[in-house]
């Protein structure tokens, strides 16, 4: 499982990354180009996955959808990871009032279950890629901050930090040079899982009509369109749906193997 999971996870993640980067060059046609004569047509050599509503090419839509998912996912994870690292580490390092304030904000964010706050904020701000990134960053940084704070509380008592303090290193230097390099591996693992769930959230928002605007292609949007036409062409749901499942599965497997690599204790109790 470990080895195969790693191969499958890395393979799927790399494929996703490849599609996201090269979508404009490898797509057989413009993902939004309409061709009414080809509406719901089955697979042909020109359109290997067939055509959707108004005859758009499904394969091109799939590639461009990967691009949107990855852009939103990556930017969200980097922003929220950075924000979480910053706020979590200063909360754990300085303690006191600052920590209390940051922790109360985190508590408040955790008081909203699941995707509730994301959907509520997205519905207030309106659709759009930028708004999606804002909403998802605002709601997910708390997880990274908790992790960073917890580890900082442990690390700040360790000898290398005490030694740096004794040498008269500034707070800035201790946080930047000693704390962050030790927090980063943990956060990276969390961020790789975060990427999977960001892609899932992006698709959910787009599915609900709160995410990608009509002029961009997103898997969630494709599924929402296809759901009404399930009896006419089940492909319209199955194609973007499988892509989404494989993407999330791949990123989760990748996160698992990254965690195993960085934390040898985990290898034991994962087994097989």
């Amino acid at each position: 499982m470990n080895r195969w999971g790693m191969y499958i996870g890395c393979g799927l993640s790399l494929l996703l990354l490849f599609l996201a980067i090269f979508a404009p060059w490898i797509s057989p046609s413009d993902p939004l180009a309409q061709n009414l004569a080809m509406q719901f047509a089955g697979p042909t050599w020109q359109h290997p996955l067939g055509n959707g509503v108004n005859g758009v090419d499904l394969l091109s839509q799939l590639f461009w959808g990967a691009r949107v998912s990855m852009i939103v996912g990556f930017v969200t994870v980097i922003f929220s990871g950075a924000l979480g690292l910053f706020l979590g580490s200063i909360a754990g390092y300085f303690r006191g009032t600052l920590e209390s304030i940051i922790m109360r904000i985190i508590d408040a964010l955790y008081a909203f279950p699941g995707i509730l706050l994301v959907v509520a904020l997205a519905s207030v701000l309106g659709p759009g890629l930028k708004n999606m990134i804002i909403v998802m960053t605002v709601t997910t940084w708390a997880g990274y901050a908790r992790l960073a704070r917890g580890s900082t509380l442990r690390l700040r008592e360790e000898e290398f930090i005490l030694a740096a303090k004794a040498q008269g290193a500034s707070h800035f230097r201790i946080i930047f040079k000693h704390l962050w390099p030790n927090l980063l591996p943990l956060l990276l693992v969390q961020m790789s899982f975060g990427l999977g769930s960001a892609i899932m959230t992006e698709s959910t928002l787009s599915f609900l009509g709160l995410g990608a605007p009509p002029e961009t292609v997103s898997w969630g949007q494709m599924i929402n369109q296809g759901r009404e036409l399930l009896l006419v062409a089940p492909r319209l749901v199955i194609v973007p749906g499988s892509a989404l499942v494989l993407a999330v599965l791949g990123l989760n497997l990748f996160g698992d193997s990254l965690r195993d690599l960085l934390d040898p204790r985990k290898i034991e109790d994962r087994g097989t």
Partner: protein
Amino acid sequence: MFSFLGRRFLQALPVAALTTTLVFFLIHLVPGDPVAIMLGDASNAADRANLTRILGLDQPLFKQYYTFLAHIFSGSWGTSLTYDRSVIELIYERFFPTLHLTICALVVSLFISIPLGVIAATQRGKFFDFFSVGFSLLAASIPNFVLAPIAVLIFSVQLGFFHVSGYQSAGDLILPSLCLGLGVSGYFTRIVRTATLEVLHEDYILTARSKGLSEINVLLKHVLKNASIPLITVIGGAFGGLLAGAVVTETLFDWPGIGRLFFNAFQARDYPLVQGIVLWVSFSFLIINILVDLAYSWVDRRVQRN
């Protein structure tokens, strides 16, 4: 037990206050004039001024906050713009179908994950273990808006087992709760499997076995109870996730619950209703977490002493 409950309720109060404040600010996050967005571009100035007055948006912020709190404590929770009725009435009517759905989804996921996780741990490294790990990974990666349309197509449309949508009889619960609960069951399976693996190494299991207890008895009496402790700690969060996830599932199945009410509310930009539902679900979540803590201290006596 009552002092424990009382203490947990007191601890929950500041969180509830923070939640309420955040929800109050939701309407102020609307870019531009919320009233113009609610009424659309074609609306005239008189209507806008009227709605601004009804919503109290012309008042100073602290006055608005006071009114918001007053609405909550008076039990009306404001008035929905699309339904022209009190928000709490609308929520109350729709809450029970959602509660049925989420409880069923939770039960379904426990029924799937506990046997799967326990058997996988006892069969460690064999085919069934591999199967269960694969299942939990896949189940956690399938969003319900992908699963539900396909399940409806196969089981309702093609095979005719269930109604395509709506909630007319208890049988209608089966398909939506399976779709809603599958993701959680993947997550639970993983937790049960890891917990069981840990418990199996404990001395008391060795003792139980050396007393000559049958393997089934060891599993049911000793392993299951101790392995369920980590599961209980995550049930509260999972239940909240199900409540929130019901937005998607209920929309797909045309379920008469608050998830679909929420969907209708944000589509119509009925912000008072959106605020009310967000607040209601997060309060429910707080209460669920208190109940879970209670269950936890009941299963694990060591917690109660602290």
